[in-house]
């Protein structure tokens, strides 16, 4: 046990010593890792912000079912329950005839003619159910449900639902566009992650390749594979650690500059205000994720990259 700790300490210590002795090999590796972690974090925040924007758009999309005046309370409660039972329905809000009238009046407060007309005819506005869907791509399911025979009589014969005609087309287009953009974001991040993983791996491999003689010597002196590999892993973890801190530091600085000069503005679909808020609220979580990413990338890649030099025998 004592021997284990002596060896463990030596591996860690050697890793640190090697790091400082091989700074010229370390710098390119750190640079590549820093850029990668920086872009990953940037893309991640951009994606979160973008999702938020899309969600805001989606939340504004709902379907209104205009109800027939003849619907009874029991029928209404039943209908509402059925709707709430659908998988794509987030919420159902009932707006009564009186409420509809009040809303109408407040929306047209300046137009005395209209108000008079409404009062004269009694209340012509129908009661309605506002349905918020989870997925705006699947509104048609809800529509199909509503269109069933037994529910047809509950609805206002002329108005029906708001999900029809031009409005239906617009909703469908937005739904399609947001889905495509979301998927493109994910695909982009995955491709970038793969490419940068390859680059980091190769940089580390070059750094280790430069010292393959050293590994051979250790092997011939009877060092066990993990005694040889350990310091390389420690070294690569130091790279990852530094890269993670530098990348998040740079982003922190960028945000503090942006948020003061571009306060609450947005670049196209990217809401800088939201991004800043998200970054600041989750700062320590993001630091943790970056560190974890940097350390595990360093460890994993150095283990793989040293493997080929650690074979005990050269031939059979």
């Amino acid at each position, binding site marked *: 046990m004592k*021997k*284990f700790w*002596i*060896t463990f300490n*030596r591996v860690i210590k050697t890793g640190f010593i090697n790091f400082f*002795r*091989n700074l010229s090999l370390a710098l390119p590796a750190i640079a590549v890792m820093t850029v990668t972690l920086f872009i990953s974090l940037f893309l991640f925040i951009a994606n979160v912000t973008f999702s938020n924007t899309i969600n805001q758009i989606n939340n504004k999309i709902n379907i209104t079912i205009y109800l027939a005046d003849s619907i009874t309370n029991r029928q209404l409660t039943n209908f509402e329950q059925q709707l709430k039972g659908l998988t794509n329905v987030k919420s159902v809000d009932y707006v009564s005839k009186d409420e509809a009238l009040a809303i109408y009046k407040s929306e047209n407060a300046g137009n005395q003619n209209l108000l008079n007309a409404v009062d004269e005819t009694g209340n012509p506005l129908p009661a309605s159910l506002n349905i918020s869907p989870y997925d705006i791509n699947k509104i048609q399911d809800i529509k199909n449900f509503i269109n069933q025979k037994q529910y047809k009589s509950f609805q206002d014969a002329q108005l029906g639902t708001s999900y029809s005609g031009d409005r239906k087309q617009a909703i469908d287009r937005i739904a399609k566009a947001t889905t495509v953009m979301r998927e493109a974001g994910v695909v982009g991040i995955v491709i970038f992650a793969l490419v940068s993983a390859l680059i980091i791996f190769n940089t580390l491999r070059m750094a280790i390749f430069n010292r393959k*003689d*050293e590994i*051979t*010597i*250790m092997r*011939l*002196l*009877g*060092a*066990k*594979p993990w*005694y040889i590999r350990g310091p390389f892993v420690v070294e690569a973890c130091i790279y990852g650690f530094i890269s993670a801190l530098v990348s998040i530091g740079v982003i922190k600085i960028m945000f503090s500059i942006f948020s003061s000069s571009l306060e609450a503005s947005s670049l196209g679909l990217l809401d800088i205000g939201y991004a800043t808020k998200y970054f600041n609220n989750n700062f320590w979580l993001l630091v943790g994720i970056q560190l974890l990413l940097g350390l595990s990338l360093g460890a994993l890649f150095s283990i793989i990259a040293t493997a080929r030099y650690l074979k*005990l*025998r*050269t*031939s*059979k």
Partner: protein
Amino acid sequence: MILLDRVSKIYNRKSTAIERINLHIEPKEFVIVVGQSGAGKTTLLRLLTREEKPTSGKIVVGGIDYDKLKDKDIPLLRRKIGVVFQDFKLLPNRTVFENVAFALEIVGIGNKEIQNTVPRVLEIVNLKNKAGNMPYELSGGERQRVAIARAIVRQPKILIADEPTGNLDPKYAWDVIKVLEKINRYGTTVLLTTHNQEIVNKLKRRVVVIENGKIISDRSNASYRL
């Protein structure tokens, strides 16, 4: 101490490095293996350090039967054999002291013992005053003596020296040989390969001659003839 029984190493049909070699070396012997380049000397040593497996035959070194040796135990075997190479194989970015200490570090020996042992061994190879130097600051002969110090610091029963003087000027070469003799006097079995005729003749030790992968002569107190 070292036993080779009908050992062959065949790389492929056209190239046979070693053919049915029988060799028995007693403890504390000093044996010189001579032969021209390509005769099979290096292959013989690589078989002993288990860098290669024989195609057929039995090898036993220091009581370890290589047929029963598992891959994961190879590091343990290598720790029992000291090896000195023609090209020194020192770790370039470590000092003389650290290079020698490294051999002890990998076996998990404590720092105190390392501080005690390394200077003693450096004294044996006459390099006590160079402990803090880097390898590139030393002459070839000095580097080779560092390598010897590293090989003997774990007090192995066997020291294998593969053409240790091959890269050295004659005046440095003899320093290295004298160190090997000293180590042999302390009780370590030494296996030396060389093709330096002068060294062989001066040493007057057991000489094994290899040609085309076969032992063609094995005599004690011999001189070098080809």
